[in-house]
């Protein structure tokens, strides 16, 4: 029994120590990002090891400069535009496609369900160069709209797969009743399937939004003109152009991080379900 007690005590100590270590390790970069974004350039240069933030010295200049002088107001709206449209298309197509895969009989149904996940094997860098070549040839490259189908292709297979698993567990009797009562297939999807799958749709929407919002590589390769930048692309541009003014880069980083973390805070359960069901690519 003494071994039991000894090990229990050890585990308790390890747990408390481990938790503290993890909290610091995970939270510190976010803390530092926020604190640094409220500093002035002088503070960044003079006191790099200053941990605290003096409330009276909070400086919003970095945000002002980033928003109005470095064009981030525009990047924010670009990022929202791309992400929201990716979400709308992704949810719509995945609902319709997921319904077809679970409820309709056709040849190659089983093949469809699994082959679509093979996409996970291909790295983005393999796709980005051929697309760069084609988009350059077609003159589509430097455009914000082209990002939407590219992001859609990255998220749609997972979205469809997630909804497929969800639809499989929905009882199909209500839908059959709807069909018998004269509803069309799309009527059934709209009136029965969608209301019943609201949580799954929320997961898909959040997952897709997150991928599109956070995406860096395609935006970096395809966009050249600053007015068309997404936030991630804008942050890279800013970091390359200011060397010492880290407060600007941190303010920009806060802007790109906050929307996604706020969504996460409110819809943690849905987002976590999206992450685990889709085993997010990344």
């Amino acid at each position, binding site marked *: 029994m003494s071994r039991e007690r000894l*090990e229990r005590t050890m585990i308790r100590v390890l747990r408390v120590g481990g938790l503290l270590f*993890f*909290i610091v390790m*995970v*939270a510190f*970069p*976010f803390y*530092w*990002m926020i604190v*640094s974004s409220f500093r002035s350039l002088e503070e*960044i240069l003079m006191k*790099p090891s200053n*941990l605290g933030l003096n409330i009276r010295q909070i400086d919003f200049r970095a945000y002002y400069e980033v928003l109005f002088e470095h064009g981030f107001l525009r990047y924010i709206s670009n990022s929202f535009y791309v992400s929201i449209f990716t979400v709308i298309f992704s949810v719509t*197509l*995945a609902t*319709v*496609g997921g*319904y077809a*895969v679970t409820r309709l*009989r*056709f*040849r190659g149904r089983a093949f469809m369900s699994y082959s*679509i996940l093979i996409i*996970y*094997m*291909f*790295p*983005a*860098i*393999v*796709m980005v*160069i*051929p697309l760069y*070549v084609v988009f350059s*040839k077609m003159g589509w490259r430097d455009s914000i709209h082209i990002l939407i*189908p*590219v992001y*859609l*292709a990255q998220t*749609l297979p997972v979205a469809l797969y997630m909804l497929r698993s969800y639809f499989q567990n929905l009882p199909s009797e209500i839908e059959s009743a709807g069909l018998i009562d004269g509803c069309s*297939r799309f009527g059934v999807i709209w009136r029965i399937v969608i209301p019943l799958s609201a949580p799954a749709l929320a997961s898909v929407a959040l997952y897709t939004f*997150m991928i599109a*919002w*956070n995406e*860096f590589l395609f935006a970096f390769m395809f966009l050249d003109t600053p007015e068309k930048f997404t*936030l*991630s692309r804008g*942050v*890279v541009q800013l970091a390359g152009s200011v060397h010492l003014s*880290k407060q600007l880069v941190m303010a920009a*980083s806060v802007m*790109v991080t906050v929307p*996604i*973390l706020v969504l*996460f805070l409110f819809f943690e359960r849905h987002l976590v379900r999206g*992450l*685990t069901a889709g085993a*997010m*690519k*990344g």
Partner: protein
Amino acid sequence: MSPRVSTLFEKESRLAFWMLAPTFAVVLGFVIFPVVWNLWLSLKPVSLEDLRGISLFQFNLTLKNFQKVLTDPEFIPTLLTTLIYTFGGSILSVFIGLIAALLVHQEFPGRGLLRGLFISPYIAPVVAVTFTWSFILDPQLGFFNWFAVEKGLLDQPIPFLSQRWLELNFFGVMLPIPLALTSVILFEGWRYFPFAFLFILARLQAIPEDLYQAASVDGASPFQRFYYITLPQLSTVLSTLFLFRFIWTINKFDDIFLLTRGQAGTKVLTIKVYDYAFGELNIGASSAMAMVLFGILSIFLFFYFRWIAKEV
């Protein structure tokens, strides 16, 4: 089969086709096509300037790109770096995820909050977290170096992300460690542990409680219970997580590109793909490099399913 059933089946098939067509079109156009096109480009002598020419569709195929890529003096070091980075990053992120899951497995006040916190590195945009870590580790303005030097933990600032080697004193023996590569692997562990954490936590919660009770009755201590019950119960999820992380880490470009641009001994194959295309303007070589990367991943998957998947 009566004709009526057959028509219904046909009707459903046709409807299914149209319902899936947009998804197919998008995936075909923006995933399958680029991959096939990549194979085609890898067999052709094309540079970035040729993009406007018509030569892209000619059948002047060549293996020169593969020859160039495989005999490049940088190829072997790059491959080694890739393997170290991929194995190191995958194992580390799964290991940290395991520790984190064990820490928050039991109920305690604030557990939900901590679970949310632990997921945040994975949710946050890659540009934000890479720039923040670069700033923290910066030798001139970084918090970490200043803090460590002021507290006497370090003699001088260390350029974590821009120095290739660091001589470390292990009990009198000077051992060089690849500094930037280690930093990048540690970052990988920090950013991707939540993925493993979520799955391991879910699996932990599914282990039947009576297994532990039976073991306690038989006199197993807490560590023995962990070793003989928890770990075997987790082996499948751990090996699957390693597989997923391996595939994604070997294909990863963003993190290293944003942290070091592939400098200071962190050049991995994906960075090399980029360098060929936009440094040397050699699209053919770049595509060939991408195919080689894909081949290496396929070899790994072959051995994984041959050996590891059977073991667990």
